[in-house]
Structure formats: C-alpha cells, structure tokens
C-alpha cells in the first residue's frame, strides 16, 4: 500500500493531479446545481407576463 502511494517516487506529482481533478469535478457539479437552483428560485419568484396573451 505504501509502495503504491509512493508512486515510484512520483507521488508529489501524481496525487496532486488526481486531487485537483476530483476537486474540479466536484466543484463543477456544485456550481451547476447551485446555478440551476438559483434560476428555479428566481423563476418561481417572478410572476409570469410574456406569453399570457396566448
């Protein structure tokens, strides 16, 4: 296990790459969900106007 974590001496390059990738993936999920939730909240707050003449 320790040998695997050491990555043949490249641990300080390999693991930051994987951690950064995981962080970017999780961050983008969070940002997209937050953006959608905000848009939904704002759409619910506003009374409908355009298209009411249909």
């Amino acid at each position, binding site marked *: 296990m320790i040998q*695997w974590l050491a*990555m*043949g*001496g*490249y641990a300080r*390059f*390999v693991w*930051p*790459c*994987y951690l*950064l*990738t995981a962080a*970017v*993936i999780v*961050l*983008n*999920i969070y*940002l*997209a*969900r937050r*953006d*959608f939730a*905000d*848009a*939904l909240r*704002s*759409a*619910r707050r*506003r*009374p*409908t*106007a*355009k*298209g*009411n003449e*249909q």
Partner: protein
Amino acid sequence: MIPWLSSLAAICGAAGLIGALGLAPPDYQQGEGYRIIFVHVPAAVLSTVAYAVMATAAGVGLIWRMNVAHAVAASCASIGAWFTALALVTGSLWGRPMWGTYWEWDPRLTSELVLLFLYLGYMGLRSAIDDTARADRASAVLALVGVINLPIIHYSVDWWNSLHQGHTLLKFGKASMPPSMLTPLLLMMLAFLLYFGAIVLTRARGAVLRRERQARWIGEIVGVTAP
C-alpha cells in the same frame, strides 16, 4: 437524461480509475509518473470538445436565432475553462519530472493557454454586456473566431518542433499504447465526456429558466400561475 449521463460517467470513471491507478502497468520509461496522463488527457480532450460544442451552439444561435443554442453555448464556457486550466496544471505537474520544467512556451502548451484565454474572453464579454441578445451575438462571433485555435492545438505537435509528445490515439493505424493502458484511458475520456454532457445540460436548464422566466410555459413548469 442528466441522471443517465451522470450514472454512466460515474461507472466509466470508477472503472477507468481502477485501471489507471491499479491494473495498468508502470511505463518502461516514465515509471509510475505516466499515470498523470489518465486525468491530463481526458481533461485536455474535454477542454477542446467543450469549445467545439460551444462554438457550434453559438453558430447555430447566431444563424437561426435560437435562444436555447445561446444558452447551451454559454453553459459550456465555464466548464471548458475549468478543464482547460486543469489540463494545463496537470500537464505542468507531468512536465516537471519528465521534461525538467513546469512550463515551456511550446506550441501545444501555448495554444492550450490561448484556449483558456478564449474561454475567459467569452465569459468576460458576456458579462460585460447587459442586453442578453447583444451579448449572445457578440460572444458567438468571438466563439466562432476562436475555432481557428482548435486545429492549431491538435496539429501543433506535427506543425512545429514540440516538446509535447505526438499523437497517441488519433493517428492512422494502431494507437501506440498497449490495451492495459489504452482501456483505462478511453474509459476515463468517456467518463469525462459523459460528465460534461450532464453538467452542460444542468447549466443549460438553468440558463433557459433564467432567460425565459417570464414566459407562460416556464410559469407552468415551475408552478407559478399567471396573474
């Protein structure tokens, strides 16, 4: 659609990760350090695919005046920017032990950096213009002009002397990788692209809601009745 894409991305990502960090053998020259490519290459591929999708959607929006297309284009930008930055940073962390430097003004690296500036410029331009229709048109033109950078990124390793290695996957004949390394790499690339699809759809849904929030059909969907 979004749950399907997310689930498939998670399955491919988990399988790819097991292969990348466990099953794939060490490289005979780069040792275990080459395992960075299993995240670096998918991030770089996503960065260019996201731009291609963004420019196509922007072009469709510009020609056929489709709001949804502009919403999709705008949704691609921030994801593309994040993954371009990730490709640059992971490439840099690979470059230090392999090339002896974090950064070199190499054609592939420089054109990828230009891609990051194109994304940032696109987002900056959109946020600088208050009128949505004008922002759509101006940013679409910028996105279309920037397409010229995509073939430059792809062929930079052929056109110029580059420190960056040549094509491994997209070349005529066999890919120059054994299946034990190629399979996890392809799985990771597929996972990243499926993930991109899920995130773009989530963002585009929000963007359409925001653009059309006063339309009656949106009111019906979100449960607000007309006054």
